[in-house]
């Protein structure tokens, strides 16, 4: 059984179908890059996996937790997959440490001392142990995104969804965030990332998914997909980069 099973997933907004029957199985430890033009449905697919969007048809399960649209099932699913966003979405009224501690104590009812120890450990892991007391607006974009990663990791998910996590960053800050992701991949974390960083996808990912008009258009190991694209759409997409 695969870790993440996406079966015949369809998603419509009104009459506009943005996902037209997606099938994708992800094994534990895989790092998957989802690439494609904007509007191809890649972000929507990622957001469906942890229930930020409801699906119209099909099924998604993560390590046995089914995507069902009620609070109990969603919570069970979300404890297994963390998500990192393009806009960081840190809680501005809490310090970096507070951001990482909050969901542990609220959702998992972890004791304060334990949550704090975990928060320090995770901030250390992303290289921000010294910023525990800093508020988000005192941090650079790259630092904020690393705090967001620490916040997701503190819930000990078995997979992470990354939705264009470097797209809102200044070019010189991209590397520090990708370094953290690269490390996570090396440690065996299962990652699904929507990205425009083609070089990163080529270096780190085990498989690349090319989405086009709501379908998985091409899929395969990066050396194959990048070096030898089969469809004209992918050839054109890669040519643009």
């Amino acid at each position, binding site marked *: 059984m695969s870790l993440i099973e996406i079966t015949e997933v369809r998603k419509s907004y009104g009459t506009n179908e943005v996902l037209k029957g997606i099938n994708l199985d992800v094994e534990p430890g895989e790092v998957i890059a989802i690439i494609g033009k904007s509007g191809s449905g890649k972000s929507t697919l990622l957001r469906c996996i*942890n229930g930020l969007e409801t699906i119209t048809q099909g099924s998604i399960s993560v390590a046995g937790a089914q995507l069902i649209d009620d609070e109990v099932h969603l919570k069970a699913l979300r404890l297994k997959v963390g998500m990192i*966003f393009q806009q960081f*979405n840190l809680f501005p*009224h809490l310090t970096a440490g507070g951001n990482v501690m*909050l969901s542990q104590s*609220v959702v998992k009812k972890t004791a304060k001392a334990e949550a704090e120890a975990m928060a320090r450990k995770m901030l250390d892991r992303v290289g921000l142990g010294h910023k525990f007391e800093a508020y988000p607006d005192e941090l650079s974009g790259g630092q904020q995104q690393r705090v967001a990663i620490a*916040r997701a990791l503190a819930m000990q998910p078995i997979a992470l969804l990354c939705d264009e996590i470097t797209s809102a960053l200044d070019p010189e800050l991209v590397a520090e965030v990708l370094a953290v992701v690269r490390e996570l991949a090396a440690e065996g974390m299962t990652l699904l990332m929507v990205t425009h960083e083609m070089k990163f996808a080529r270096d780190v990912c085990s498989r690349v998914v090319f989405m086009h008009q709501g379908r998985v258009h091409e899929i395969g190991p990066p050396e194959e997909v990048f070096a030898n694209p089969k469809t004209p759409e992918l050839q054109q997409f890669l040519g643009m980069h």
Partner: protein
Amino acid sequence: MIEFSIWDILRNLLLATRWTILLSLVSFVGGGAVGLLLLFLRISKRKAVRAFAKYYIELFQGTPLLMQLFLAFFGLGLFGIDVPAWLAAGLALVLWTASFLAEIWRGCVESIARGQWEASASLGMGRLQQMRYVILPQALKIAVPPTVGFSVQVVKGTALTSIIGFVELSKAGTVVTNATFQPFTVYGLVALIYFALCWPLSKSSQILERKLNVAHRNH
């Protein structure tokens, strides 16, 4: 004919001011509690619940406070319930205040970026936990100045309760005028007392707005 000194007039007005202040406090605190409940209903995930809160708010904002006072005072009387003026006044003002505060606060909650809801949801928080730990602490900062500002409307709103016979500052003004035949002096003093109650509230709303630096932080 008995002569009334300014002090006689002022003393009676100030005694009645206690009731204006008490009624304002009750309306504001009670209206705040009901308003918070309405806020949760107004942003509920269920359509019927949202609709109920929406129509409640539209009804109370769309009819004059005076009509609401009449209905509370005379309406319940039709069912054989004897409503004292203070109860009708308190009830109507609480419900009226709630409808405005709920709508002010809804605007504040909705001004919080959608990403905050999504991030907290993706961490496994339920809706109440999201509100309690993520949304309300941020919305509160935005809500303080308009909420304090609205309290001025509540204080002035209490004046209408004089019409159903509740003796607060305005009613006392009428009573004193009938005894002294000095309407200009009496109502002038009444106005000054209202101003003394309201002006500090408006002023503190402005100061809070600057202090909380609503426009700039976190953007």
